[in-house]
């Protein structure tokens, strides 16, 4: 009984790491650009396919992760420069546009790869698991958690200790004043969007071997959970995203073990419950870190 609990908890936390990578980008982008990027799941699925195919072709795991990051960043850059600049300040247009891009990116994947799941294998160095006291510990899960923790650390460092981070935090609070300080805020929009998009691609690249297979619709599923995560944690807050992703990751893991079809419903209920008590989400607005 206890062993099931710990096995599920570990699985839940590694799930959380993936959600966090998605939520962190979403929340940073929202904090600064005031855009809820529904296309984030599309970057995720492209990251997953890019990484999986690079890995099956070259058997270079690190390179495949880099491919996910690159494709995410590149698509994000194109999306921000090419489309989003036209609709800043218009929430409805942003919603329609980013939703459309999510659907488009998911559909485009089907053209070369079809709808069927594609196998994504774990590289040999990470292909281990241990059973200690009936608790199953999977090496790749630990690796995923480690990656999530690393990215959290890097983001906190970036935001708190660097000049770019200082400017981002300032921009979240008062954009027009940042401009008055001689800083081009639009360039910062691009940087933050690209960063968030690269993280989504990275999450996709990590997710393939984690799930064992990838499908074109995985982006949509991920988008839903990532969206719930950021709303739950508080839009615009990085700590909120961390806590939110842990809650959603663990809930998903436990609920899908006992009643698989209720996992998404449970997450939506959790979000609704939190929003009833705290409409601004767990960490509310104002402080990005």
């Amino acid at each position, binding site marked *: 009984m206890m062993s099931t609990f710990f096995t599920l908890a570990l699985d839940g936390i590694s799930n959380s790491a993936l959600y966090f990578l998605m939520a962190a980008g979403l929340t940073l982008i929202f904090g600064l650009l005031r855009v809820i990027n529904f296309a984030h799941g599309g970057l995720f699925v492209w990251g997953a396919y890019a990484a999986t195919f690079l890995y099956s072709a070259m058997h270079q795991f690190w390179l495949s992760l880099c491919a996910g990051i690159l494709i995410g960043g590149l698509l994000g850059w194109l999306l921000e420069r090419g489309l989003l600049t036209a609709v800043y300040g218009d929430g409805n247009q942003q919603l329609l546009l980013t939703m459309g891009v999510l659907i488009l990116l998911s559909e485009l994947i089907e053209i070369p790869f079809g709808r069927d799941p594609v196998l994504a294998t774990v590289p040999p160095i990470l292909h281990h698991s241990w059973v200690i006291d009936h608790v199953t510990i999977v090496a790749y899960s630990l690796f995923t958690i480690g990656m999530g923790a690393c990215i959290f650390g890097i983001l906190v460092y970036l935001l708190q200790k660097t*000049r770019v981070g*200082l*400017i981002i*935090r*300032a921009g*979240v*609070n*008062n954009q*027009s*004043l*940042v*401009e*008055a*300080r*001689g*800083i*081009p*805020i639009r360039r910062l929009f691009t940087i933050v969007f690209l960063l968030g998009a690269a993280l989504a691609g990275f999450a996709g690249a990590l997710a393939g071997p984690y799930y064992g297979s990838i499908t074109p619709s995985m982006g949509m599923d991920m988008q839903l959970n990532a969206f719930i995560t950021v709303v739950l944690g508080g839009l615009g807050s990085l700590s909120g995203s961390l806590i939110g992703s842990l809650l959603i990751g663990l809930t998903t893991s436990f609920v899908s073990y006992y009643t698989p079809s209720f996992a998404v419903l449970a997450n939506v209920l959790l979000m609704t419950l939190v929003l009833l008590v705290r409409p601004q989400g767990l960490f509310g607005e*104002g*402080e*990005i870190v």
Partner: protein
Amino acid sequence: MKALLEVENLHTKIGQFSILQGVSLSVCEHTIHVLLGRNGAGKTTTLRTMMGYLRPVPGIIRFEDQELTGIATFRIARYGIGYMPEDHNLFANLTVEENLLLSLPKQDTHVRSQIAKMLDLFPDLRVAWRRPAGTLSGGQRQMLALASVLVSKPRLLLVDEPSKGLSPRFVERIGDALEQLRSETTIVLVEQNFYLAKRIGDYVTVLDEGHTVYSGEMQSFAASDELQKRYLGLQTDKKGGAK
């Protein structure tokens, strides 16, 4: 004397409303030029237009020999124009230190001495050094807002109602600070407190309903009850402490 800033015939629309309909002023180097006018006269809009947040059609803004019309706000700031807005003039989530650091380009080698100078000018900021700006008192906030514009040594300073909502003690302090700065920079000051305006202003421009209606030396304006009554609708008392 040649003007550092030359503003001619500004017309600015916000949405479909014509807010400015002919604002002109000419600002000489190392002077304090006060913008007066009733609430809603267009003072804030004039400064926002100069900073490039709003685009005048038509209108000319010349800083030295550089035409500023149609240039992005961040570039205007880089020409050496500092702006302290009327509201939201600091980053509430950043500490006092971070607010000041943000104004200094990272390649600036005089960061420490510039910041030390601000702390000498506004000693109140020293005690609040690591506190978020949002937790400061009203007076401290205005001082920080001013300091974080001054710290980058602007050649021209646009200040919008720095004394707003402050107690007389703080109004004096802000006034002293601005007066000290005259030798180093040039200031366009929007000020509702006529007592302060009179004390530190060299020149005055009065706006009404989006037009420049008067421009001249502060000395003669301050000396004439007639002019004040005509342009500001002020009832001056014997001591001259009008409000």
